[in-house]
């Protein structure tokens, strides 16, 4: 029985949702974090982190193969009982909501700091949530199309960054392993935060039309994320002098400020706003997934009223309080920790348990 019959997404949409949620606003912060933790060899850390993430995501895919027509919640309901699945649904709802809220607040803060300094935060939040509603209310198909379109619309971003080639010094990349291999390898977990979001695979799997392409899709998604991050990281490493990197916030945007086009000056006002397409991929799919989990929990087929309540609630909440940058960073740290357990560890454990149960059941049948 196909519960999710009319909401299908193509492989390319699958890839772009996963990599979109991962990249979203990470590429602004990741170079400084990598440099601080791992020095000029930080990009190696990135590559290693990608490999680990790919493995974790493949674990999720293997898990979902056990239940091709349901999400992970349905899987849990089958293997662990309804109440465990309910608890998991609550946890997923909270996680995705947290993810979406942080992405939204971060983008609002960036806009407020760089483009609209005097507009109240809740107005910016409201403006950002209107297209969210338009897109997320129509289901995963539209979210998938939006993710696809946003990623293609953002393909110009690397080319703009290449315009700073005059300011690049490749010597800054040397020495690569100044303090040896240890910091490079030890800091791999700190990159996990920037790959978070692939847990959505567990929810996207039933909607994927060609399920045999799921593995390929996952690998492609993480390759895209890796390439994007690697590009910006190496560029930042070549652009900033080593000491300078610890003095500047939001390296990606700072680099953008030095771009000068012949017909436009100081283009970062324009480009930061254009980044919203890719930033929005951190909250639009996750708001949808939150509403989806909630509707699974309450047993409703239509997630739209829940979506409206969620979004309206966010606007009202931000009228009273909008976290500052430092709070956002602290909340992100917390999210990194939770995410590591949630997205990296939990599926592997779950996979192990499911395999074990199947093995026991098979043995039981045979005997």
């Amino acid at each position, binding site marked *: 029985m196909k519960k999710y019959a009319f909401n299908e997404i193509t492989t390319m*949409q699958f890839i772009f949702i996963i990599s979109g949620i991962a990249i979203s606003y990470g590429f602004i912060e990741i170079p400084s974090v990598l440099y601080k933790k791992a020095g000029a060899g930080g990009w190696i850390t990135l590559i290693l982190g990608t490999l680990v993430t790919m493995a974790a995501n493949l674990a999720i895919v293997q898990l979902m193969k056990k239940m091709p027509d349901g999400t992970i919640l349905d899987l849990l309901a089958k293997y662990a009982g309804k109440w465990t699945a309910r608890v998991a649904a609550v946890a997923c709802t909270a996680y995705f909501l947290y993810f979406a809220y942080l992405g939204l607040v971060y983008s609002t803060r960036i806009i407020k700091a760089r483009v*609209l300094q005097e507009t109240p935060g809740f107005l910016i939040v409201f*403006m950002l949530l209107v297209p969210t509603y*338009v897109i997320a209310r129509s289901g995963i198909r539209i979210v998938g*199309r939006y993710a696809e379109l946003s990623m293609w619309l953002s393909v110009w971003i690397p080319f703009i960054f290449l315009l700073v080639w005059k300011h690049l010094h490749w010597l800054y990349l040397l020495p690569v392993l100044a303090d040896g291999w240890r910091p490079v390898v030890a800091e791999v977990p700190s990159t996990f935060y920037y790959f978070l979001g692939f847990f959505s695979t567990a929810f996207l799997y039933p909607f994927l039309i060609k399920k045999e392409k799921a593995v390929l899709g996952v690998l492609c998604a993480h390759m895209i994320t890796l390439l994007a991050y690697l590009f910006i990281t190496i560029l930042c490493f070549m652009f900033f002098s080593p000491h300078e990197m610890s003095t500047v916030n939001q390296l990606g945007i700072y680099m953008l400020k030095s771009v000068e086009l012949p017909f436009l000056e100081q*283009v970062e006002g324009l480009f930061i706003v*254009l980044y919203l397409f890719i930033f929005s991929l951190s909250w639009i799919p996750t708001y949808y997934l939150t509403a989806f989990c909630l509707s699974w929990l309450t047993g409703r087929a239509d997630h739209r009223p829940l979506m409206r309540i969620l979004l309206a609630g966010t606007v009202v909440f931000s009228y009273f309080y909008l976290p500052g940058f430092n709070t956002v960073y602290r909340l992100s740290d917390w999210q990194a920790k939770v995410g590591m357990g949630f997205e990296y560890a939990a599926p592997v454990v779950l996979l192990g348990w499911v395999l074990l149960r199947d093995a026991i059941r098979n043995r039981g049948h045979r005997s």
Partner: protein
Amino acid sequence: MGVLSLFGGRYKRGKNRNNGHSVAAAQADETLSGSLESDLDRLCELLAKPEDMNVRRLQIRATGEHAALIYIEGLVDAAEIHTNILKPLLLETEIGRQSPISIGRVEKAGNWSDTTSAILKGGSVLLVDGSREALVMGTQGWPQRDPTDPKMETSLRGAQQGFVETIQQNIALIRRYLPNRELTFKNLRVGRRGDTQVSIAYLADVANPDILQELTDRIGRLDVDLIINTGELAELIEDNPYSPFPQLLVTERPDAAVSHIAQGRFAVLVDRSPTVLVGPASFVSFFQNIDDYSTRWSIATFIRMLRFLAFFISIILPAFYIAVTSFNFELIPLKLLLTIGTFRGSVPFSPFIEAVFMELTLEMIREAGVRLPAPIGQTVGIVGGIVIGQAIVQAGLISNIMVIVVAFTAIASFILPNLDMVAAVRIIRFSLMIAAAMFGIFGLLVGLMILVGHMISLESLGTPFGSPFAPMRFSDWRDTLVRSPMWKLTRRPLSARVEQADRQGANRPKGDG
């Protein structure tokens, strides 16, 4: 009996449950009595004895039966009636195996609703004393025009023919392009009082049966008095009439309609309307013009890209100007900034007011020019454009730059080949201007995001509207942003969801010298 017995076939008004209340419903199955006098009385009663109805009593010479020929003058071809009906009936002395009436379409009608309907649609009805069936003859001859050059969709190189107001002629115009067995016309009737014939044209082996079913259902469900124009039908069966974007393509040209039919789409012809609906339409169909295929592919590609560029310019430019001069002036290069600053320094209004004022003025000039007869219309355009624009600038009400922006935007919107899309652009432009006036570039972008979000969730007869961008389908790009050379367009577009996709063989196989 006599004459009528030579005819078979019953005249059926066509299945339309929604037709009829009051008189027509009551008489739906009432049959003729057989007596000429009482039938005539009943007929005059039903039709309320209109002045233009002519009742010609006659005696059929060959059989001696009394008969009456009833028709509405003005709707019939009088010459045909005189020559092919009255003359043989009155003069032929013998009726052999064949009937003397030499009209092509002849049917029998047994009940009043069919009979009255036939008269009202330009047929002639022959009532014969003693017969319980009337003879209905197709003598339609209302005033109609020749297919002339379509007014709105002119083509430089294509056929100078446009659809006319009679559906049979329009069907004929389409059949001329596709004399193929698979070309099918599915007929429906719409409107309680109008009883308009609507035809869906498609290629049976190519078009998607699900879309056909959807279209038929939508048209079949309509409950209206009458449909005057294709535009009304479009709005009634559209997926989302609240959207600024049109979801069905309206065309006046047979060659354009046939081009879409050949790609696997459906064309809906409406009687009495010289325009035809084509669906399912995607966003890029509104940027395609029949001339693209007659000119060479490189220039056609260039013009296609120009159209997309023009679309973006016409929705974004005034909003961008407002955003940049009110919020983000650091974007402007220094020398331009000094120039614009000097211009704006002498103007009392904010850029938003300026922009709205100029756009509204332009819209008014445009509307005024459309309805006026040709010579006055042109004068108004020139007066409005040049004189008013110049005078406004010199009076210091609007800055030069604003006039340039508005003029450029107007030119850009004229490049778009489809009128509905131009209308959409006008609406979208105003909304984006408001968004930009409130939040600058950010507002402009959020407006664009909403537009994008709306477009990707829009569907046209179940097909995604944003294709080939929203569900990204690279193979369809061959005929969207670029117009690939003709030999490369070997498959029908995916957006039509066709059953059979090959439309060309290898016309330039590799290794060809």
